[in-house]
């Protein structure tokens, strides 16, 4: 596999007219729905302040809260496991499944399991995993990655889904009726829910004071996956914990309203223990896998820490003019869009994904809507500086990896021109005289002039004009 590169992915995507119109329409709809939910701007800002304080407090107390969560879960009968890396996490899940002799499993939507590439890992071990969120199910049929964290199959239109389901599911004939397509999926998945040996889910919030795992969803597949099979395994990033039960309602409200413009989702599922004596359903075993995978490193840097406040609503991508143009796949990362641009390079290293922080115009549309006020642009700028840092090492993995001799030289030259008034005056006058003779078809100008006219230097600089007019210099 070639190295992931946003520019290459984006260049391909931006030329795909169908894809662009699919995303534009979908994102417009999501933005409109969110705006309708937050008609009262003052309420929104107060709620954001509250949400930010809850998430910041959770992170400031993260180690204690995780220990508290662990203790309360254990007391409730939930088994807790800690994983430092994705590989550790995968192995923990596999061991649980092996002990239960589980061969088939159904999954609710979980971005952390995508991060772990859990499906891939388990398939290789001969365990059948089936995604049960409709969007994720379709993605799995297509052997694709999600293109959006909330709406994974947003890049495909109905006809493309219809064709896929006809081709991949035995006995299904082509239909573009979305209700009918849902009915087909329901039928296939019902059978699986009933028979699966284990269910896997993510976690939206974990409550330390009660040892409760919360899941947000509309379809009911999350409830199915966590209720019908005998064993339930929940995987979560360590940052997802909150201190109190009363911290949950404001975050839930911010999440669903920001994500899809719903006042709340159809289901909010709070799990605090396995099946208790006398109960007729629910799993007999519940496991919680806590995944670090680079998060504790992010936590250590106060400027980067707010990255971990994220509640995965996806509003930043819905409002991102770059994401809207290219879609999620162009990022070649589990989490695309603005939050992906800051999270992915930190988790995987700037040596691997140092390209991502540069995929932004820094327009701040994401910052404006983030329900927990993550300073995405500040963090992008910091990561750009880390990527091009003259020193290796430091708090971000792979720092300095993007620094390249030619570019560094160019910036040194730029500095020499602009750090001294005398040099600048001389060179800018020279540019006014001769700059327009530079051909538009070479160097960086080539990219510019492919779709734009060449910028024209003025005959005299403002410095020259002000001096001539006698504007005082001090």
């Amino acid at each position: 596999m070639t190295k992931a590169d946003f520019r290459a992915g984006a260049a391909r995507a931006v030329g795909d007219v169908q894809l662009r119109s699919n995303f534009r329409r979908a994102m417009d709809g999501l933005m409109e729905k969110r705006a309708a939910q937050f008609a009262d701007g003052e309420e929104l800002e107060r709620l954001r302040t509250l949400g930010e304080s809850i998430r910041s407090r959770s992170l400031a107390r993260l180690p204690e809260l995780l220990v508290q969560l662990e203790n309360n879960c254990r007391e409730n009968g939930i088994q807790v496991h800690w994983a430092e890396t994705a590989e550790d996490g995968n192995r923990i899940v596999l061991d649980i499944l092996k002990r239960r002799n589980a061969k088939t499993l159904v999954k609710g939507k979980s971005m952390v399991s995508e991060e772990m590439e859990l499906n891939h890992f388990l398939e290789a071990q001969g365990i059948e995993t089936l995604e049960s969120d409709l969007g994720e199910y379709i993605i799995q049929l297509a052997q694709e990655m999600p293109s959006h964290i909330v709406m994974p199959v947003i890049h495909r239109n109905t006809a493309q889904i219809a064709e896929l389901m006809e081709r991949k599911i035995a006995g299904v004939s082509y239909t573009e009726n979305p209700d009918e397509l849902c009915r087909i999926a329901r039928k296939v998945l019902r059978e699986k829910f009933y028979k699966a040996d284990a269910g896997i889910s993510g976690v939206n919030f974990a409550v330390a004071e009660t040892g409760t795992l919360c899941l947000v969803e509309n379809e009911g597949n999350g409830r199915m996956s966590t209720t019908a099979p005998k064993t339930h395994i929940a995987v979560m990033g360590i940052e997802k914990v909150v201190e109190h039960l009363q911290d949950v309602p404001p975050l839930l409200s911010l999440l669903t309203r920001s994500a899809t413009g719903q006042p709340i989702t159809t289901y909010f599922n709070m799990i605090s223990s396995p099946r208790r004596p006398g109960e007729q359903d629910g799993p007999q075993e519940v496991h919680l896998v806590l995944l670090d995978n680079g998060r504790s490193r992010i936590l250590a840097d106060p400027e980067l820490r707010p990255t971990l406040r994220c509640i995965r609503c996806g509003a930043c991508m819905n409002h991102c003019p770059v994401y809207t143009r290219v879609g999620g796949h162009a990022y070649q990362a589990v989490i695309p869009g603005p939050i992906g641009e800051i999270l992915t390079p930190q988790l995987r290293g700037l040596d691997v994904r140092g390209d991502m922080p540069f995929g932004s115009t820094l327009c701040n549309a994401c910052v404006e809507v983030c329900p927990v006020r993550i300073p995405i642009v500040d963090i992008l700028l910091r990561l750009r500086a880390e990527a091009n840092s003259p020193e290796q090492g430091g708090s971000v993995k792979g720092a300095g990896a993007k620094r390249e001799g030619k570019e560094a030289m160019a910036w040194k030259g730029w500095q020499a021109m602009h750090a001294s008034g005398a040099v600048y005056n001389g060179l800018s006058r020279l540019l006014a005289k001769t700059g327009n003779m530079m051909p538009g078809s070479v160097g960086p100008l080539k990219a510019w002039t492919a779709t734009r006219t060449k910028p024209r230097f003025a005959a005299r600089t403002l410095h020259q004009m002000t001096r001539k007019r006698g504007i005082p210099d001090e």
Partner: protein
Amino acid sequence: MSERSYPERPESVYFFGTCLIDLFYPGAGMAGIELLQREGLNVIFPQAQSCCGQPAYNSGYRDEARAVARNQVRHFPKPYPVIVPSGSCASMLRNRYPGLFEGDPDEGAAVGFSKRVYELTEFLVHVLKVELTDLGPPMKVTWHGSCSMQREMGLREEPRQLLAQLGNVDLRPLERERECCGFGGTFSIKLPEISAAMAGDKAGDVERSGAEVLVSGDCGCLMNIAGTLEARGRRVAPRHIAEFLWERTHDKG
């Protein structure tokens, strides 16, 4: 950011021209100076000024950005307001300098400097409270508010308030007036395909507005959108807001 308290009208101000205006749109810079002078201010233009440092800063070259920034901090020493005819450069000077100089011997000077920075339309509206009389012919105009102006400086209404004072100007809104034009500084060179797609959409929006003139407070956006329109053979004249206001309100006789 937007909850800023403003000083009384000063006697003297500094003018920070910005490198893009200096090299490509000096008329906009002169117009900005003249708007301020007409209000009775003594406008000072330090000849040693160059660039705010944003290109390097946004590209992750902070040492280089700081070296250039230091040159600006040092050449605006008096306690006068610093007026900047660009939302983007004003934001760099105002919002980024304190962090850029953290722990540096010039930190105190940089913080003091940043607090004195005002974007031009912000200063015209909130400090000078200018009143304009339109002397120009009827004209259809659209306004592009840059991302840094709207979201980093919190200036959405100020330029509109100024344009609204021009009686003969028919201000046409853009369909997606809050959306980025795709310039993004070096973004336009590093990710040219996306930048071009965004600029193309914005240019289409400008065309559909029916405007004869595209006004903005940021020359990077102007260069990007107008350059795209021109390459498509469209006739929409780009104007920096300072130049547009000055052209329409000064007596040419």
